[in-house]
């Protein structure tokens, strides 16, 4: 079944697909949009001034009104993914339906029309180019320039993709600037030594663009590509001994591009990541942040010289500021973590996956993707004593007060989901005991014993649960209990009680 909101492009697409046979993009099945927040486990963020897209563990979410209160969300369930990029009203994502292929999806955001560009056939093509590596879109980065998406393809060069999805070409960084069209390209058309020349690269890790140029971070060097004359230039870094380029971003000032490159240096024991900036006018490299990172940091460039850095190794977000675009940045004192924790009662052990910065009118939006939901803050004026609270958006359903509805999240404890949290809502403040029994109602363990719990409120999504305590990991007396169905009882001091089932299947 093919579903598109605009029938004409779909028909045109199908016509083209039929003409191209197996060597062209196709419009694939898409899932009906939903109006809820898909998942609290958010991997990636992308967006523009009003728009925010979230790639979650259950699908895609987006809003066109990040500044509205409340935010109206839309989304697509049952879609997995690896990367999303948003440019000029269009979202390009490396997505796939559950158990499906590794696809590029294109969402035309202005009209909420959407189509899917499926590039399965190129997988086989790229594979045939180099049998020693596997082509994948897992690491795609993309940018919109010259009315085309420029997609960094792992092991696949730089992919130029028309927003229609039906015109695509590959450019391999190097002196040979031939564009290989997918509709006409065959491995035989590539000269035998094309990819073996030392001054060229076929693996593109990340891309960025200023107003004229595409900057491509390749494994062994930073390349600049001019779409106008299809010319590649390699940026000299011979004095810096970089091991690998892993990320690239740009700021433009008049006729100068400042290219921020995250590089890795492979040591004897560990790999270290560092942030440098390259001044395209002076051809000078400067180390922007003096800290070393042991895991790849997430870098977001803010206004007025601000740089926001998420260090996944310790879940910390730090703000830095550069007095000048190619100067060393100074760490700011703002405490993001404390502000984040104030946004919700269950934000204790939060894993931060991504950060996003966007300018909205006179204000800015700073969003944080975590494994328990989205946090965002308006008025992110970092040069003031900014205590603007973060707002917490999550998909938790308000529970009816009174223990009529309780459940364990998730209902099955297994090796992949090693513990479950008990969701319940008290009518009024009370003391709570949670016990676990087996199928025969024999006592297994006590989770909490007469612990004080507050009545749920809107702020707590209608829960009295204290997540760090009201949970069970399927163990008792130091061992994992036998696989089976277990019964939990939530009992209050005032005599209310509720029962539910939870399955344990750990080994």
């Amino acid at each position, binding site marked *: 079944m093919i579903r598109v909101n605009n029938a004409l492009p779909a028909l045109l697409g199908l016509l083209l697909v039929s003409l191209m046979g197996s060597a062209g993009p196709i419009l694939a099945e898409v*899932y009906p949009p939903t109006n809820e927040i*898909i*998942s*609290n*486990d958010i991997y990636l963020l992308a967006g523009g001034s009003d728009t925010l897209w979230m790639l979650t*563990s*259950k699908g895609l979410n987006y809003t066109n009104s990040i500044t509205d209160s409340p935010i109206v969300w839309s989304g697509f369930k*049952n879609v997995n993914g690896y990367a999303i990029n948003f440019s000029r009203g269009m979202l390009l994502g490396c997505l796939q*339906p*559950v*158990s499906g292929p590794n696809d590029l999806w294109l969402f035309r955001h202005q009209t909420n029309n959407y189509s899917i560009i499926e590039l399965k056939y190129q997988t086989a093509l790229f594979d045939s180019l180099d049998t020693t590596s596997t082509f994948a879109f897992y690491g795609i980065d993309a940018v919109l320039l010259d009315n085309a998406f420029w997609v960094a393809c792992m092991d696949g060069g730089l992919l130029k993709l028309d927003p229609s999805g039906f015109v695509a070409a590959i450019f391999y960084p190097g002196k040979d600037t031939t564009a290989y069209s997918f509709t006409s390209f065959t491995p035989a058309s590539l000269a035998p030594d094309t990819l073996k020349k030392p001054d060229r690269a076929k693996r593109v890790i990340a891309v960025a663009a200023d107003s004229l140029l595409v900057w491509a971070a390749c494994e062994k060097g930073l390349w600049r590509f001019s779409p106008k004359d299809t010319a590649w230039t390699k940026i000299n870094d011979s004095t810096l001994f970089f091991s690998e380029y892993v990320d690239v971003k740009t700021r433009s000032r008049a006729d100068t591009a400042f290219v921020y490159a995250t590089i890795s240096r492979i040591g004897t024991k560990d790999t270290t990541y560092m942030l440098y900036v390259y001044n395209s006018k002076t051809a000078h490299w400067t180390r922007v942040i003096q800290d070393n990172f042991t895991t790849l940091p997430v870098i977001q460039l803010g206004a007025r010289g601000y740089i926001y850095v998420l260090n996944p190794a310790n879940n910390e977000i730090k703000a830095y500021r550069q007095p000048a675009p190619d100067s060393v940045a100074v760490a700011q004192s703002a405490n993001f973590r404390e502000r984040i924790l104030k946004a919700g009662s269950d934000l204790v052990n939060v894993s931060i996956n991504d950060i996003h910065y966007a300018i909205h009118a006179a204000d800015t939006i700073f969003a944080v993707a975590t494994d328990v939901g989205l946090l965002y803050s308006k008025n992110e004026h970092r040069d003031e004593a900014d205590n603007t609270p973060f707002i917490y958006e999550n*998909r*938790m*359903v308000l529970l009816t007060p009174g223990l009529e509805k309780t*459940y*364990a*999240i*998730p*209902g*099955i404890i*297994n*090796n*992949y*989901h090693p513990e479950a949290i008990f*969701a319940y809502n008290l009518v009024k403040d009370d003391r709570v005991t949670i*016990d*676990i*029994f*087996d*199928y*025969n*109602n*024999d*006592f*297994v*363990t006590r989770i909490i014993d007469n612990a004080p719990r507050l009545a749920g409120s809107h702020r707590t999504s209608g829960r009295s649960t204290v997540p760090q305590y009201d949970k069970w990991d399927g163990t*008792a*007396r*130091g*061992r994992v*209990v*036998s*696989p*089976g*169905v*277990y*019964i939990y*009882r939530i009992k209050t001091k005032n005599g209310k*009680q509720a*029962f*539910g*089932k939870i*399955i344990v*299947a750990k*080994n």
Partner: protein
Amino acid sequence: MEKSLLRKTRIFHILPALAVLVACAQAQTGLGIYGGAHLREPVGATAFSLGGAQTASPRYLCSWWNPALLAGLRQKSVALGVGYRPLGRTEGYVGFEFSVPPRVGLGLSVLYRGIPVIKGLVDEQEYPLDECAFETFSFKVGIAYLIRRNLFAGLNLSVLYQSLPTGFEDLQGASNIIYSSATEIGGLDLGLYYVPSKKLCYGLVVKNLLGSFKWEFTDANFSPIYEDALPATVTLGQQLSASLLGWPFIWSTDIIAYVLDSRFTSLDRNHIVINNGFEWQRWELFFVRAGIRDIALNSDMFRHSGAYADHFTCVASAGFRLDLSTALKGRGVVLNYAFATDKIGAGLEQQLDFVFSF
């Protein structure tokens, strides 16, 4: 003669009491972490109403309770029963047993227990999971031999099966529950039946020897095979026949010890459970029964009396036996019904069965 019997009776009462006291020195609470929970509850409405005290003299389903009793059967019998417990737990059972004169008896029993519909589970994002089911089937085949007129021995071989939801995944338009199953083949029960006098009999049964559930997890998140050894149980049962207001009155007791698992490895704690049941045969065709079961005796009674009192649970049960043979023109049909309180206050448990003798 009468005095001698009483003296003997007292001695036999003292022995289990001493055994309990010795075991209490180590035993502690918490049977719930071991496998085979669905095998612990009494099977059959008679046993259910008598508080699970049936090891010394089961009327039917001998292959479940004490295979030694198969050697003493006088008629063939078929038992059919169903049960319902709160929180959606259901069960059904069938038993067939007969003797092969002069010394051998055979029997088999099949028990289904499970929760056919588990609703309300959610995934880690609070999305509802599909309805799923937990199901178990337990087969036991028993054989017994009459050693002497007052001493029988028997054994069971068992095949146990479980199917359990063990995972979930997102599949558009299809079930998102992943099931795994476990099978136990070759578990062994050994039973003895001894009758020292007309008014007293004893049963001794060791269950679940060599048996363990072998899980074959179909979810990629698991090791493919996981062996879950069942706790082996030693049950000493006695049944004393007396009279109340001139009518026969029977008192049954089972003392169940959990010390080793089926592979002869010590459990992390020892457990002693006592079941008691009473039957008053006030009317010829109608017997009333009551019982109390799952009284956990353990060292917490002395060391942590507060915790013992806090966790103490037991089950009170009652029921009746109605002989329908007269109403059905001499055909041997008996109706048994039982109900019991629930240990955790979730509702009432019930069992009903018919026993056909021919």
